[in-house]
């Protein structure tokens, strides 16, 4: 991969700035019309997806050089993918999100790295997790629950808690809740315990694709040895990594299910029944990696061809990831099934959801930017009158918890599994 690979997209970008907004058809107010945290925070055009493509073109044409400011524009982005959705309102030939990832990777290859990410990467390489915690502590979240250890036993299904649920003490109970639900449903599953490894998705988004592959190879090998054919995770970042990146980059054929999908299936099959009302008004935040980036991976190895003289299409047809078919309804259906619970929607939802601010290495590299992004979302959640903002990803929840504690907001931050547990 090199900058040159971005040339066609850069030259075909029209600087229309759709990448800065949610799809215009979905705009319901001035306040919540913006789509891209990066441009709203960084302000100069280079902080937009289109602006980064121009930067790439400028660099590859030798018109400019990489400066600290340029590195800042490339990395100060949560890779939430809103730009990708809005661009594809009108374009079939551009891939802004993929381009942003490749631009970062190219920068890392060329040594243009962020020093503030180095401790995170050191932790990943030594301790195999994104929080820099001791790998010996991994698996401690399970506490006294009795679950198969797939390093010693066999099962078709592995429950992957992920780094955040494994090491973030305030959130670990969500993983335990998920495990209890699986047990209650009679699922034969296990965990990798201390041998569970980071999915590598964060490293990939930070531009460190080699680190991602190391983690992916390790996990896939361990799962294969344990006889696993399905992974269930309550973490949306892991979900995206397994569902999209493992298949695309490592040839994985493992079936990937997010915990909310699984619970939704149990409810619809009549295997899970709620008995207790939860008197609460909540609003649901779509994690980027479960929502617009949660679409099914479709293998493709083709090339561009022209039709009608100059119009661009692909041979064979290129899969179109634009957020139209993300995982939006299962979490909502779960919430709607909980007695007494009222779901009120924010303006920017589903493919137009505003990011929590944690993705793309932003929370590690740019904590102020990351927290500002989360605070914007909390403000939107507050505008609905909800008691709580609910999500299905520990990275979103951690960022929201930090944002609410920083400004003294009383809004609760919950994972869907917590509400499910209350209703059982």
């Amino acid at each position, binding site marked *: 991969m090199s900058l040159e690979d971005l040339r066609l997209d850069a*030259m075909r970008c029209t600087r229309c*700035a759709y990448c800065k907004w949610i799809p215009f058809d979905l705009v319901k107010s001035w306040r919540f019309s913006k789509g891209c945290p990066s441009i709203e925070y960084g302000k100069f055009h280079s902080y937009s997806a289109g602006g980064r493509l121009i930067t790439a073109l400028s660099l590859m044409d030798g018109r*400019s050089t990489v400066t600290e400011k*340029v590195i800042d524009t490339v990395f100060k982005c949560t890779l939430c993918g809103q730009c990708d959705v809005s661009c594809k309102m009108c*374009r079939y030939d551009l891939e802004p999100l993929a381009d942003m990832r490749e631009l970062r990777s190219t920068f890392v290859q060329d040594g243009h790295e962020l020093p503030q990410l180095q401790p995170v990467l050191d932790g990943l390489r030594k301790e195999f997790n994104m929080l820099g915690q001791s790998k010996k502590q991994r698996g401690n979240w399970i506490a006294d629950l009795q679950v198969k250890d797939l390093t010693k036993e066999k099962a078709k299904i592995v429950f992957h808690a992920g780094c955040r649920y494994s090491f973030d003490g305030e959130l670990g109970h969500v993983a335990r809740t998920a495990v209890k639900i699986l047990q209650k449903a009679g699922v034969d599953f296990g965990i990798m315990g201390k041998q569970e490894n980071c999915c590598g998705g964060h490293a990939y988004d930070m531009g460190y694709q080699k680190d991602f592959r190391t983690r992916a190879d390790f996990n896939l090998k361990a799962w294969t040895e344990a006889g696993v054919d399905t992974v269930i995770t309550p973490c949306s970042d892991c979900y995206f990594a397994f569902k999209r990146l493992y298949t695309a980059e490592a040839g994985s054929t493992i079936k990937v299910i997010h915990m909310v999908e699984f619970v939704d299936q149990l409810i619809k099959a009549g295997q899970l029944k709620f008995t207790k009302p939860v008197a609460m008004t909540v609003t649901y935040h779509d994690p980027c990696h479960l929502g617009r980036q949660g679409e099914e991976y479709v293998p493709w190895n083709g090339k561009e061809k022209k039709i*009608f003289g*100059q119009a661009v299409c*692909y041979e064979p047809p290129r899969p179109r990831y634009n957020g139209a078919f993300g995982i939006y309804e299962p979490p909502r259906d779960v919430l709607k099934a909980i007695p007494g619970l009222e779901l009120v929607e924010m303006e920017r939802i589903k493919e137009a959801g505003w990011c929590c601010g944690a993705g793309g290495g932003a929370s590690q590299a740019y904590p102020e930017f990351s927290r500002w992004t989360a605070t914007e979302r909390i403000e939107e959640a507050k505008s609905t009158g909800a008691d709580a903002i609910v999500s299905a990803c520990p990275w979103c929840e951690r960022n929201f918890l930090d944002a609410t504690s920083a400004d003294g907001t009383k809004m609760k931050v919950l994972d869907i599994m917590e509400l499910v547990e209350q209703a059982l």
Partner: protein
Amino acid sequence: MEISRDAYRAIEDIVGPDNVTDDPALLDSYAFEVMAETVRPNQSHFMPRPWATVLPGSTEEVQAVTKVCNKYKIKLKPLSTGWYHWAAPLTDNEPTVQFDLRRMNRILEIDEKNRFAIIEPYVIGAQLQAEVIKRGLNFAIIGAGSSCSVLAGACAYSGVGPGAFNMGGQAENLLGQEWVTPGGDIIRTGSLSSGCGWFCSEGPGPSLRAVTRGVLGSRGGLGTFTKCAIKLSHYPGPPIMEAQGRLPGYRMPIHENFRVYSIGAPDWDAWANCYHEIYDNRIGYIFHKQFGFAGANIAPAMWLTYIDPTKTMNDVETAVHDPELQEVFKEARISFQFVMAGNSTDDIQLQDKILDAILANTGCFKVKRYCEKDFAEFTNMYMQRMGHKHCNYMWVGGYMGSWMQWGTPDFVKGYAPAAVAAFDRDQKSHLLVECGGDALMGPGSALPGGGQTALEQFVSYDSADNASIKACIKHMEDAIVDSRAIGYPPGKESIYLQVGWDQERVFDAWAKMPQQFIFNFQRKIKAAFDPNNLGDRNYQWLPEDWAEKRKVETNKESHVGLGH
């Protein structure tokens, strides 16, 4: 080229270090503009690079930076949302500060009773519409779409679009404006200047609309507009535009007092007659020849593919040959979109009857497939919000509009067949998108109540392929010759090409024109408001005695284009 450190520090002191940059890569994001490749050497996508970009946060900051520019003789070029090659600096190696006005993004007031909104430059059409329809009001989003600055369309260009027929264009609906002249003065126009508020453009106080807009809109060439008031109109629809369905073909249910049609015409005469009868009967809310821009030979296949989220561009190729779609191709060949809005059930039913009578009189008809529920709801969303306008670039990223001339439907039908034939001819090179010669698009009327329409030929080229870009340039040059051959002045292509000319060539061209008094008059305006010549030639003016000094002879066949 670098801005002097003294000037940079002075600007930094005004806006703060986070709001100014001279990093070349960041500046290039302002030099890169659509269509640059049609006018720049070697088909570069970069216009001249500004020497610094500034993000002012207030009128006072704009004024203060403008004064710094005057002190150091630095050109200034404001942009709001920023689009088109003329939004960048026009001259190489010329010290220029680009204002990016994105921090000035507030809706300052919506006066429901007097029906106007006061806005800053970075308020876009989608934002303003979303806020005003909550109050039962609306305004005409310009043809360039809801991504564009409302203020720019009102103050610095002649923004019109599909809703202008009912609500008037933004330029016409401009009430007061606040303007920082290139000389650094703050001027308020209309009733605002006499302290009476923003309600009236014509005073009490000076109306400078014609002065600031000039012949074609100042387009950043005559200082910075920092606020404006835009007139709003009654909106009989629901308070929220609730999009449904999946991206990209979102749909909006059709309110009981609305109707959404696509109207086909058997020929250009019937098309013009239908327009005249719509004008005469004053029915309709949104009136635009929209979907045809994808080209008559492809458009139905493209749009019916577009509204299916599971499909890709490859499916368009298949759909073109679908036997079931051939009737749509036939019906939609010359067609336009027409949304009617009634204040009551009786009102909309009456409009329906009138439309049926017009169709019977003119031989026009409803395009059946386009009027089915799914497509009509898509049309409803598309035309009311104008949030899909960059489908212009759907084929391959390059689009240029040629031929556009304003006039009565009879005037426009006079050039439409020639525009079709010429584009058909140029597509035979295979270097432009072969969509059929009729890729014409334009508003039903730029004036409220009708009278003035236009059609723009949508020429699509691969902006990453020099051969395709050059084919587009050739089409632009040929269109000027082709239009002259049938007695019409050149269209938009002439304006676009001039963006790439050097100053002397531009002046020479203007000096040939029979209406050059306009440019001489605008010289006096420029002298009054831009004494240090810090604006660029987007505000069109001619140096004194230029024609005599350069021995340029007036040529009655020379025109500035666009029919102005």
